[in-house]
């Protein structure tokens, strides 16, 4: 008498043999999970003649030859980008020959930390280039807002600008 485990294994082996598929040229149907059932056998069980499959393989072959594999079919897809504005190039302002005895505006955009950092720059100039005069200014408005009055003052009274963006 076989032991229980061996009996179970034997039954499983018998089931696998019953479910074994025919050669891959036969039409097969997947019924979910890993079970694969021969289509001709299925049609017979349903009372239909497997003869209805007679032309299918040939037609299938024909289709298969006419089209490339799905993964190689090419598509033309549209670019989703909008329209960026044209860019007007802005020449840089002429440089100073030297900063000695010049006035440098130190401008903060208002972001936390920029004011303290610019203060340290002012201290650096006092220590290392004492002839340089620094003027601290907080730009008006939000971070990206223009401050025309400040730009006018700088053009009138300053020679250069160091602008700090904080963070």
């Amino acid at each position, binding site marked *: 008498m076989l032991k229980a485990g061996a009996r179970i294994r034997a039954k499983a082996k018998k089931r696998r043999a019953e479910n074994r598929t025919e050669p891959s040229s036969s039409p097969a149907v997947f019924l979910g999970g890993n079970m694969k059932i021969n289509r001709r056998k299925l049609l017979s069980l349903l009372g239909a003649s497997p003869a209805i499959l007679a032309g299918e393989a040939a037609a299938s072959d024909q289709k298969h030859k006419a089209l490339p594999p799905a*993964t190689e079919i090419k*598509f033309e897809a*549209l*670019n*989703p*980008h909008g329209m960026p504005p044209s860019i007007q*190039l802005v020449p*840089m302002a002429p440089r100073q020959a030297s900063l000695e005895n010049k006035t440098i505006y130190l401008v903060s955009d208002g972001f936390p930390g920029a004011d303290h950092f610019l203060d340290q720059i002012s201290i650096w100039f006092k220590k290392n280039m004492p002839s340089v005069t620094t003027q601290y200014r907080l730009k008006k408005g939000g971070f990206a807002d223009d401050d025309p009055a400040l730009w006018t003052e700088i053009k009138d009274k300053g020679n250069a600008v160091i602008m700090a963006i904080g*963070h």
Partner: protein
Amino acid sequence: MVTIAFKDLALSNAAKRGMPHERICFTPHPIWGKSEAEMYAYLEGNDPVTGKPLMPEVIGALTNPLTADEQKSGTVTPSVGPPTFIDTADNLQKYYMNNGMTDFMPIIIPTQQKVDAMLKGTSHDPEEVIGELTPARGSFPAWKYTVRHVAINAVMAGAAPEYLPIILSISASGLPSLSSSTNSFSTAAVINGPIRDKLNMNYGIGAMGPFSDVNASIGRAWTLVSKNCGNCGQPGETYMGTQGNALNFGNIIIAENEKDSPWTPFHVQKGFKKEENIVSVFFGYGIAQGQGGLGSAMKPVPQFDQGLLYNFIPLTSIFGALAVLDPLVAQDLVTLGYDTKDKLYAWLQKNATLKVKDAKTMLFTGGAALRGPQAAALKDDDLIPRWPSTSLINVVVVGGQTNPYYQVANMSYSRSVSIDKWM
């Protein structure tokens, strides 16, 4: 001078503003929170990009003669690439994703056929310019886009042609779903009018969740339009959100539950007729659950007004409050005496206060009350309003009435746009 964390942004932004050779020196990051000694050490150290001593570099930037390139003027038109891309489906998916055109999830490939079908969703000319978007107004140049551009992105998002008018109206609002800020902001859109039922939008159970292709594809399209038509959402360049925001995938899309709400619909409050189809957009931080607010467990009727006040505590003053209430909560608030939204707004604005000494320690909070001439007279224990007016508090009603819950967003109402115009 810019910290190293913003190097790409600074260089890219300078170029887009016509100054590709702007002389920028970089410091270590961050500046904020560093002591004076630490900041001075930055100055005595090196530029982390060039490796050269920083202050001599700054002085050189101000004194070295200009090169020929730095003196150039004229106009340059940036290219966005060819009008079409041809490849297999798999390669197109990778191409769109690797070139920043998606939300990193598979798209519906926008073939001409699909886009033509999408364009049937509107009577407008495909070449009509409908608006402009920028990751941050004033900081980045705005891009323009047409009905066709939006339709392409709507196809990619998986929308049906019938949803296009809503997507066009959100696109026409000029509010991107992806802001450049380090804050990781998010957006919301509230849809009112008969179109909600016509398209079978979800305003019942799971209204703000992944339970409707209409709601989901509209929200997704908003992000794709923002990325592709507004040049938003390019990390390090036009997107600096330090942690990002999960809401950006689909945004908060709310079809207001007008039939179960005891109050006037949101769009009617804003002056539109009930039968008009309107989308109202909001901008700010994220949204949080309201359960656990003070008074929320009281019986027989929970004190939802007190609960809302409690949930307002962590909200900043730079944005308002958007309370999203299940109809059961709205009905309970009516029982408490708030038979109109305006009464609720008035009570909330009056009672949403905080002490001056607390506001001074809180980021982005206190607002106008802490500035101006009157601020000098304030004492530490004085109470100031979190928001100066009721216009910063908004309520919409949505949900399937499985329980009286609500959510609160730190968001401000931006504007309302007609959907009917884009039919």
